[in-house]
C-alpha cells in the first residue's frame, strides 16, 4: 500500500477495464507503467476487445490516443473505446452494512412477511439503541436521539422522532410504518432520507415508508 499513491491500478469490471491514474502523475510515467502492466499480462490481453475507462487524472485527447497505442502495441489487444470516468477513485465507499452496525447479508428472510420479531413496550428514549435481527414493533414513541436498527421491518405504534433503519442488512423490501412518521433520519437498506422540514406536528396520519424504483417513498398507510 506504501506506493499505491503513485502507481497505476487496473481493475476489471463488467463494463470493461478501469485504469486508475493517480492525480499528479506525469504522462510519460503513465505510459511507461501502463506498458509494463499490459506486457506482464500479455496473454490475457491478446486478441481481446476492451472498453477502457480511466479515473483520477483527466488526459487530453492526444494522451488518450497515446495510451491506447501503448496498450495495443504492447499486448495486441483491441480497444473499442476509451473515456474518462469522472468518479473519484475513492478508496472504498462506505458500505450499507457499516451504516448502522448490522452485518450485511445476501439472503434475507422471505420478502417482508416473516421472521423473528421484537416488541418494545413504552417510549424508546434518546440515547437508546435497539439493534435486532428481525422485525421491531414499538408500542409507544421513539424520541429524538434514539436509534432503531432492524434487519426486517419497523412498526411504531406512536410517533417516530429518532433515527430508524429498516432492512439494515441490505433488504430493500423492508418497510417502516408509524402512526406519525417524522424521524430525524429514515434509512431502508442502503438508502437514507430525511423528514421534510415542514412537517405538521399536529396531524396524526399513519404513514408507511418503502423503497420504490430506488427511492424511499412515504405514503399514507392503507392507500
Amino acid at each position, binding site marked *: 500500500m506504501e506506493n499505491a499513491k503513485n502507481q497505476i491500478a487496473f481493475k476489471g469490471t463488467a463494463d470493461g477495464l478501469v485504469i486508475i491514474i493517480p492525480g499528479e502523475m506525469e504522462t510519460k510515467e503513465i505510459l511507461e507503467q501502463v506498458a509494463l502492466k499490459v506486457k506482464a499480462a500479455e496473454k490475457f490481453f491478446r486478441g481481446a476487445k476492451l472498453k477502457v475507462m480511466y479515473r483520477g487524472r483527466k488526459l487530453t485527447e492526444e494522451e488518450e490516443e497515446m495510451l491506447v497505442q501503448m496498450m495495443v502495441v504492447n499486448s495486441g489487444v483491441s480497444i473499442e473505446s476509451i473515456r474518462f470516468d469522472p468518479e473519484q477513485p475513492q478508496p472504498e465507499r462506505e458500505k450499507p452494512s457499516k451504516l448502522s452496525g448490522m452485518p450485511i447479508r445476501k439472503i434475507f428472510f422471505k420478502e417482508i412477511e416473516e421472521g423473528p420479531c421484537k416488541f418494545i413496550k413504552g417510549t424508546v*428514549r*434518546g*440515547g437508546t439503541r435497539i439493534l435486532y435481527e428481525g422485525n421491531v414493533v414499538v408500542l*409507544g*414513541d421513539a*424520541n*429524538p*436521539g434514539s436509534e432503531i436498527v432492524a434487519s426486517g421491518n419497523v412498526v411504531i405504534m406512536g*410517533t417516530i422522532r429518532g433515527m430508524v433503519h429498516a432492512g439494515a442488512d441490505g433488504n430493500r423490501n423492508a418497510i417502516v410504518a408509524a402512526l406519525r412518521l417524522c424521524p430525524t433520519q429514515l434509512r431502508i437498506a442502503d438508502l437514507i432520507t430525511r423528514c421534510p422540514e415542514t412537517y405538521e406536528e399536529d396531524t396524526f396520519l399513519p404513514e408507511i415508508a418503502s423503497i420504490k424504483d430506488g427511492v424511499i417513498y412515504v405514503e399514507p398507510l392503507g392507500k
Partner: protein
Amino acid sequence: MGEVIVITSGKGGVGKTTTAANLGTGLSLLNKKAVLVDTDIGLRNLDVVMGLENRIVYDLVDAVEGTCRLKQALIKDKRYDGLYLLPAAQTRDKNSVTPEQMVKLCEELKEEFDFVIIDCPAGIEQGFKNAIAGADRAIVITTPEVSAVRDADRIIGLLEANDIKNPSLIVNRVRHEMVRKGDMMSIEDIIDILAIQLVGVVPDDENIIISTNRGEPAVSDNKSMAGQAYRNITRRILGEDVPFMDLAGQGNFIAKVKKLFGFRSA
C-alpha cells in the same frame, strides 16, 4: 422510614439546585423533616443558594469516608424547623464517592428524615450515578427548550434503566407570553415527548435570582409566583391534589393540562 427523592435534569442550568432548595424548604414549612444532599462534588452550590455556606465544617465526602460522623456533617437551617443540609465537598471530585457508599448514606438518612432531597449534578457520568444510586423516586427538571427536553428524555431513559420508574416532571422557567405567541414550547408539547407525570410548572420569575443570591428560598416568599409554584409542587409531592396555577391567564389552560395529565396517568 423516609423517602429519597433525586432532583435531576441532564442539562445544566435548568434549576436543579434551586428546585432542591425550594422543595426542601417547602417540606419543612409543611412540618416535614427534610435533608438536602448536595452531590455536586467539586462544584457545590446548594449551600450558597440556602445561605449556609459559612457554616460548613464537614461535608459529604468526610461523612462517607468516616472523617466525621454523619450527624456532624449535617447543617441545621435555623430559619426552618426540621431542615438540614449535607453539603458537597468543594476540593474533591465526583470519583471520591461510589454509588454503594451513596446507597448506604441514603439508608442512614432515611432512618432520620421524612424526605431526603438529593441535588444531582449535570451530566450522566459518575456524579449522576452516585446521585441516583440510593433514590426511591426522581423528579426530572426541564425548561421549555429543545436541548433541555432532549437531555431530560435521555435522563428518564437512564432512570428507567436503573429501576427508578415513573419519574415526575417539573417544567421550569416557563414564559407564558412566549408560549402564547408560539415562540416557546408549550407544556403539552413537552409532555407529549417525555410522556411522564407532570408535578409542577414554574414560571420564569426574576425574584428567583434575587432570592438565590440572598440565600433565601423563594418558597418562603408569599409574593413570588415561582414561590407559589414551588409550594404547590411540595403539596403534590405529599400526595395532595392541587390544581395547576392559571399562569397564562387563559381559562382553558388548566383544563388542557389536566386533560393531558389524566390521560397520561390513566
